[in-house]
C-alpha cells in the first residue's frame, strides 16, 4: 500500500519527485529467488521458487535446474495459478554441490526474458 501511495504521490507531485525513481513494471525480471541467487544453503531444497516483477504466461514460461555436470535435476517448472508472478521448480533430491538455474519466461505483455543464477548445497 505504501508503494501505491508513493506512486499516487509521485503523479500528483511530479515536479517535486522527478528525481525519485518510482519502481515500474513491464518485462518480467527476476525479483528474487529461493534459494537466494548465489547463496549457499545447508540442507538440500526440494523446490526452487522464482519471484518475477510481472505476471507470467504459463504456456511460454519455464525453468530448469542443472548440476555442475550439466545433468537436469528438476522435475519441471510450474507457474503458481494463484500468483502468476511466482514460478516453482520441483527438484529431485540434491547432493551437495553447485547448481545452476536457467529461466526463460514470457510476461503477459509479450516480452521474453531469460537469465540464470547458481546456488550451492551443503559444504562450507
Amino acid at each position, binding site marked *: 500500500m*505504501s508503494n501505491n501511495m508513493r506512486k499516487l504521490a509521485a503523479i500528483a507531485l511530479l515536479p517535486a519527485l522527478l*528525481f*525519485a525513481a518510482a*519502481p515500474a513494471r513491464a518485462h518480467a525480471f527476476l525479483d528474487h529467488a529461493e534459494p537466494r541467487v548465489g547463496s549457499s544453503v545447508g540442507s538440500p531444497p526440494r523446490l526452487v521458487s522464482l519471484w518475477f516483477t510481472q505476471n507470467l504466461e504459463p504456456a*511460454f514460461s519455464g525453468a530448469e535446474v542443472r548440476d555442475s555436470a550439466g545433468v537436469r535435476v528438476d522435475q519441471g517448472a510450474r507457474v503458481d495459478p494463484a500468483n502468476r508472478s511466482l514460478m516453482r521448480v520441483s527438484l529431485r533430491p540434491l547432493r551437495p554441490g553447485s547448481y545452476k538455474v536457467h529461466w526463460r519466461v514470457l510476461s*503477459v*505483455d*509479450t516480452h521474453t526474458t531469460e537469465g540464470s543464477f547458481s546456488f550451492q548445497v551443503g559444504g562450507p
Partner: protein
Amino acid sequence: MSDPLVAARAIHFASTAMLAGLFLFMRFVGEPVLRGRSDGAITTLRSRFLVIGWSSLAVSFSSGAAWLALLGFNLGGHSWTALIAENISWTLLTETRFGNDWLIRLGLAAVLAICLLRFDPGRGWRSHWQALASVLLSACLMGSLAWAGHGGGTGDLVGLQVGADALHLIAAAAWIGGLPALVLLLAFAYRTNPPSFALAAEATSRFSRLGLVSVCTLLATGIVNGVFLVGSVPGLVGTAYGRLLLTKIALFAAMASIAIINRFHLLPRLSGRGDAVAALGKLERNALIEIGLGLVILIIVGALGTMPPAAHAQASWPFPVRPSPDALLDPAQRLELAGVIAAAVIGIVAILAGIYAKRWRWPLLAAGTVLLVWIGPRLNLFTEQAYPTSFYVSPTGYSAQSIATGRKLFAEKCVSCHGPEGRGDGPAAKDLRPPPDDLTAEHIYGHSDGDLFWWITNGMGEAMPPFGAVLDETARWNVIDFLHANADARRLSEAAGTTGVALPLPEFSVECRDGSSLSTDQLRGNVVHLVFAGPASAARLRRLASAKADGETTIVVRPEASEPTAFCETRDPDVIAAFALYRGTDAIDGTEFLVDASGWLRSMWFPGRRPDWEKPETLAGQIAAVRRMPGRPRPSAGAGAHVHAH
C-alpha cells in the same frame, strides 16, 4: 525498422489509429458539417471516407495477424516450422492474455466492418445510435492496445496505468487518425467552385476543439504513463527509452504548434479579411505535415513497446552537474533559488519580447541578457558535480548476502587505507594526501549510491586508485551496501537503548514451521523482534515463546548446527555476518534487534546492556515504543534507492 516486430506493431498502431480516428472524425466533425447536404460531390467525399475506413481496417487486420505470427516465431525459437508444427499460434491465441485480447479485438473489428457497411455515402449514418456505437467500438479497438504494450503488470495500480494508457491511445487516434479525413474534407472545400470557405472553417473549428480535448488528454495521461514507465528525469535523459520518448514529445510539440497556427492564425482568415484561398491551401498542407509527424510518432510508439522501459534500465546521466537536493532543504537557499528562477523567467521573457517588439527592442534585449548573466554563477549554488553513474540504482536489494560479501571484499581491498571499520585510519593512511575519508561520517549519507559506484570504479583524485578492473560491478555494489551497513552500525551503537534511529533493514528470508518461506519484505506490518540465538539462548527462547505478543513477530537466527526452534528462523551465515557489523563483533550470540512495522531497524540489545530486554516489561515497553514510531514508507527491495532516515 530493422526488427519486423517493431514494423508490425507500428503499422498496426497506425492503421488502428486511422480507423478509430476516422469514426471519431465522422461523428464529431464530418457528419455535423455535411449534415443535410446530399449532392453528388458530397456522396463522393463520403465514399472516400469509406475508402480510408476499409483500407485501415484491412491493414489493421493484416498487421495484427503479422504481429501474432512474429510473436509466435520468436517464441518458437525463431523457426517457422516450429511455429506451425507446434501450433504455437494456437497456444498463443487460446492460452495467453495477448491472444485472448487479440480474439476480442478481432470481434470488435468484425463489428466495425458491419458499421462501415451500414454507412450510406448518400446520407451518412442511418441513425444516431449507429454513429455512437461505431465511436465506442473503435475507441475500444484502439484503447485495448494498452494491454499489448507495457501495460498490465502486477499490483493494485495497474488499473490506473492501463486506463491512462488506453485513454492516451484513443486521444492520439482522435487527432492523428482524424487528419486524413480532414485533408480530404479541406481538399473538397478547396476544389468546390467557388471554394466553400464556410465548410472548411466549420470543419477546422470543430477539429480544433476535438484536438484540444485530445491534447489535454494526451498530456495528462502521458504524465501518468511517464511516471510508471520512466519514473525520473535521469530515466528520461539517461536511457535509450527515455531519449526516444523525448524525441516523441518534441514531435508532439511540433504537431501542437502547427495546430495552434491553424486555429489562431489560419482559421480566422477563412471567414474574414485576408487571403482565404491561400489560408485554405496552408491548412491542407499543415494537415499533411501533421500526418507525417504523427506517423513518425506511431513508429516510435511501435519501437518503444519492444524496449525495456527506462524505469528498468540504468540511467546514464549525460550532464556534468545535477540539481543538488541539499540546497532545496535549506529554506534560505530555497528562497534564493525561487529568486533565480524568477529572474530566469523574466530574462527569457524580456529577450523574447525584445525579438518581437519593434519599440523597446534594444533595452529589452539588454535587460534580459543582464539578468541571465547575473544568474549564471548563481546556478552553481543549486547544482553539484555529477557522474554518468550518479543515478545508477543498486541491483542488490540491500540483501544481507550482499552486505556480507561486501564486508569480505572491503577487508581484502580497502582496509589498508580506510581502516578495518572504514574510519580512514588504515596503516597506509598516514602517507596519503588527501587522507582517506571516514566512511562512517555523515557525508556518506549525502552521496548517491551511483556517486559511490563512480568513485570506486574510477578512483578519486591522486590517492584513491580505481577499482573498476579489480572488482566486478556486483562486487562494487556489494562494497557500497557494506559501507551503508557499516555507517549505520555506528549510529545504531551510538543510539544505545533508544528507538530514535531508523535504518534500512538488510533483506533476507526465513523459514517458518509450516514450511513457508518469508522475505523480510513480507514481514512488514508487524514489529519484528530479531533474536540471534547461541548455545545459551534456550531459556531465553522458551520465555519468548510463552510470552508472545500480538502484532509482533519473533525471528530467530541460529548457528548451523543448533536445534530448530518454535519460531520462523534462518541459519544463513550471511545474515549473521551482516548483523555482526551492527554488534561490532562476530560474537553475536544473544544480540537482539527490533524492526518497526514499516521495515526500519530501530534498536539493538545484547546481554549486559541497559535497559534490560530480558525483563518482559522492558521488552514490551520497547516494542510499544517502536510501534508508536510514526510509520514512514520504504522503497521496496529492488527499487534500489538507498534511503536513510534519522
